[in-house]
């Protein structure tokens, strides 16, 4: 069953996607599956092991199950400070 997910992009991912957020219809069951699906579709250069993932504004493990309506953010290597 397809889920409707809200995905936000920042920094290099935002530029590679060409937009800051979108609603995605996906059959992915985990955050990792969702990233691989979107990476294949949009040609993101960063592999998942260089990123972290947040679901509903909290850091989560890549194996985290995603549910209809979740908000997902893939976090490229950070460089604050």
């Amino acid at each position, binding site marked *: 069953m397809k889920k409707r997910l809200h995905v936000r992009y920042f920094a290099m991912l935002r530029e590679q996607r060409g937009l800051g957020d979108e609603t995605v219809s996906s059959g992915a069951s985990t955050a990792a599956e969702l990233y691989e699906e979107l990476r294949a579709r949009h040609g993101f250069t960063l592999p998942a092991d260089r990123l972290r993932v947040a679901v509903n*504004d909290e850091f989560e493990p890549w194996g985290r199950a995603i549910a209809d309506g979740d908000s997902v953010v893939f*976090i*490229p290597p950070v460089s*604050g400070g």
Partner: protein
Amino acid sequence: MAFRMTGSPISPAALVGGLGDPRAGALAVFEGRVRDLNDGRAVQELEYEAYVPLAEKEGERILEEARSRFEILRAECVHRTGRLGLGDVAVLVAVAAVHRGAAFDACRYIIDETKARLPIWKKEHYEGGASEWISCAKRDGPPPGR
């Protein structure tokens, strides 16, 4: 709020002024500023982008950790978003404590964790018009797992 992201210029005097405490014999302040050279390239300006809701939650966690690890009275941290010019304050950490040791240690802890953990990204704009997202992971290893 002890930790916050802001799109407006940071005023160190205003932030430090809010940390007055008659018990505090020490106030340690760290200012991270935009510098003119990175990896040998001349930087003209910086742009910070942040995932603000998570940055503010994780920033509060870092301050909470600092309060539990060190004997401090108060800690504040504020980090910029948006475009900054050379010399502008990008991040400010201020810690009040009874004694200087804890104030220095906590200040160092807060800035190190902030740089390593907060979902904030820096794009450098160079002389000549080129620009690049800076990846600390390039220099310091992959992001921490969880």
